């Protein structure tokens, strides 16, 4: 319930109060209302009352010094904010080799880059201590300097609210978030970098625009949570998400009046922690969007250039099905996505829509195995003087198939990836991937290797 900083301040105050209580003599200790405990306590306390005034003055001086130091450090050396604030970040440094030759320019085969640098700010605008119906905010910026430029752009900017009481694990959840945010589509697009075994996303994520943020209102919740308190394990049987967004991507305004809709439903097999079907879930997502259809409007005179104009709205549909089985130490994810994009064919005019629908399909299967304790929440929360230095190893394989046009034959792009992740601290990992990329249309088979160090804070 309390932030770590608040807990630390309180702990300091407890220590000070505790010293004061001892210094003031045990006679001043409050009595208990429980008579049996109280009598015993008083007898013991009387034995510990030999405190002199010099002791008291010494403790008071220590307390004053401590208060002065804390106040001065807070004023001069502590970052402050108007509301509770948690600063987080992820940085990915990457190096790679490929046997493919660049189409133009210098035929390089190796490259190093900072793939992503992300910094985020999250916290509560209002903290509800009664029922945990908190008002929250999130603000994240990302720099992904591929291609030479290093544009820093806004990634997430949301304000959220918990509509239901969410104090206990067995409470059902319903949270809404408004702003620029990740779509609740499938597994691959939503999984954060901390949990992704593979360095790069599946091909369909980028091709279908599922990795891009959207601006709108999204509700996420769950029903019938099953809690195994023997392991502090919570698994809602039903998870859902419903949303309405601009549909025009991130950091831009809407380009039409049609709002895109998304719905997701996940069913998890009810089980206790120790069951072999723990964390076995099947999900489905449907995204209904609209895109502007353009056509060329002839110029006013035969010599004037034609200008593109919007002649209507075309469908932009995404349908996904996924299977998730993450039963530590092994895991399996499978995702199937169908994309349907309507666009005007060449020759469309203001008076003739002439649109066609292009169907695309992506599939990805990932298998991994964990050696070590990196993903066990309970094990990570240890009491110790030094920092924890977990060492975990995660080998994996992935098969990623992308069909850019279902109607065309033998045009799939396949990426077979094998790799290993070495977690060498709680929030850091070193990743090695080897990819074999098969272009069935071109009949090529090329290999590339990537190494990435990712650290978070």
């Amino acid at each position, binding site marked *: *319930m309390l932030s770590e900083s608040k807990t630390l301040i309180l*702990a300091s105050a407890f220590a000070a109060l505790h010293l004061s209580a001892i210094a003031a003599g*045990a006679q001043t200790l409050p009595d208990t209302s429980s008579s049996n405990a109280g009598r015993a306590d008083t007898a013991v306390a009387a034995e510990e009352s030999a405190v002199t005034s010099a002791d008291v003055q010494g403790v008071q001086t220590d307390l004053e010094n401590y208060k002065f130091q804390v106040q001065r450090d807070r004023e001069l050396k502590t970052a402050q904010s108007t509301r509770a604030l948690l600063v987080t970040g992820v940085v990915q440094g990457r190096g790679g080799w490929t046997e493919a030759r660049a189409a133009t320019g210098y035929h390089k085969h190796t490259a190093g880059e900072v793939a992503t640098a992300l910094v985020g700010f999250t916290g509560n605008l209002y903290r509800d201590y009664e029922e945990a119906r908190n008002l929250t905010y999130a603000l994240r910026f990302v720099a992904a300097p591929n291609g030479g430029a290093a544009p820093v752009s806004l990634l997430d900017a949301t304000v959220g609210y918990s509509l239901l009481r969410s104090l206990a694990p067995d409470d059902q959840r319903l949270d809404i978030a408004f702003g620029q945010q990740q779509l609740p589509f499938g597994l691959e697009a939503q999984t954060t970098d901390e949990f992704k075994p593979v360095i790069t996303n599946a091909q369909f994520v980028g091709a279908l625009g599922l990795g891009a943020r959207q601006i709108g209102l999204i509700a996420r919740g769950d029903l019938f949570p099953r809690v195994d*308190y*023997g392991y502090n394990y919570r698994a809602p049987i039903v998870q859902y998400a419903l949303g309405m967004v601009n549909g025009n991507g991130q950091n831009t305004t809407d380009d039409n009046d049609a709002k895109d809709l998304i719905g997701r439903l996940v069913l998890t097999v009810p089980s206790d922690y120790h069951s072999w079907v723990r964390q076995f879930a099947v999900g489905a997502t449907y995204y209904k969007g609209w895109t502007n259809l353009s056509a060329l409007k002839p110029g006013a005179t035969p010599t004037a250039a034609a200008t593109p104009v919007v002649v209507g709205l075309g469908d932009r549909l995404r349908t996904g099905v996924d299977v998730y089985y993450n039963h530590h130490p092994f895991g399996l994810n499978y995702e199937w996505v169908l994309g349907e994009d309507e666009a005007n064919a060449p020759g469309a005019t203001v008076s003739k829509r002439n649109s066609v629908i292009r169907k695309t399909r992506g599939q990805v299967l990932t298998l991994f195995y964990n050696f070590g304790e990196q993903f*066990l*929440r309970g094990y990570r929360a240890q009491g110790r003087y030094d920092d924890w230095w977990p060492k975990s190893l995660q080998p994996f394989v992935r098969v990623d198939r992308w069909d850019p046009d279902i109607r065309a034959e033998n045009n799939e792009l396949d990426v077979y990836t094998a790799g290993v992740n070495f977690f060498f601290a709680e929030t850091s990992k070193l990743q090695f991937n080897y990819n074999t990329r098969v272009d069935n249309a071109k009949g090529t088979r090329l290999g590339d290797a990537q190494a990435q160090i990712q650290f978070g804070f």
Partner: protein
Amino acid sequence: MNTWKLKFATLAVAAAAAFGMARAENPKVIRFGYPGTGTGGRPYVGGSFVAYARAAGLLEQEFKNDGIKVDWTFFKLAGPAINEAFANKLLDVTLLGDQAAIAGRAGGLNTKIVLATGVRGVTYVVVPPDSPIQSIQDLKGKRVALFRGTAIQLAANRILEANGLSEKDIRVVNMDGLAAQAALASKDIDALFTIGSGALQNQDQGIGRIIYSGKGDDKVIGYASGLLVDGDFEKANPQIVQRIVNVLVKAAQWSSDDRNRDALLQSWAKSGTSYSAFKRDLAGQDVRAILSPVIDDYYRETWKKAVADVKRFKFIRKDVDVDQWIDSRYVDNALKAQGLENNWTRFGADGKAVRVSAVQEP
């Protein structure tokens, strides 16, 4: 092959097998768990003879010459986190309270209880000093912190039931011990259930007033704890388990000796809870009984009642056979080998002494 060559080969194979077996028998590390941490997350605790053994480094000394490391893990999320670690084969031995141990066993964990580490545990209910709450009945409708999945939850349910209430009558806030103490100080909760000396510490700090102490409350049976070993570890390393139990029985004998009480409490105070709080927690209790490692009929009966209650409160669905679960061979061996069979009073299933300790209290 002539005879001497055959003998030599046989010897070599036997020696290699023996060497291999010896290597297989000795683990490089014993992974020892403990539910909870000291104040501020420090890796020291108090309240048991296992805590003393940790503070004194007794297990480390025992296995030093064998090159076996003792790796202690103190779990902030207590019993449920220990069950998670057991389920994923990350622990060999642990101290664990009754409810979490029972939930783990009912869920299919292959564990054995080989040593008693506590019985008749005392639960307290603490409220802010200026709270109008005076009794358990006054908790009705209030925000009450308790750590679900741990021995505190079972104790809380027993106390509530003895006072005509249930968890449904209060607004439960699920919190670990340190978070609950901070919430009590800021009055974000109206009360908290806690075990051991933490309640006395809250009182010293001026943030809490004890409205209920389980000392001598016959309506509510105290919680129990035990030393659990992973079944596979025990099967592969019975001699290591025996040595662990030997060391801990010796620690129990030292801890329950009244002449060592001050030194014991000082070692517990490494946890950050004060010497005074521990002393007052023990005051009025049969310290030798609560620090007894003996698995007697009362200890078994306490676990049987705990299993029945955990099932009755619907925290588990499957049953647990306590007689199959508790294995007293190791502690009986240790008591016999160290001549301590009569060091602690043995109690019958009804809680009455059946064989009084031969040790004369000073």
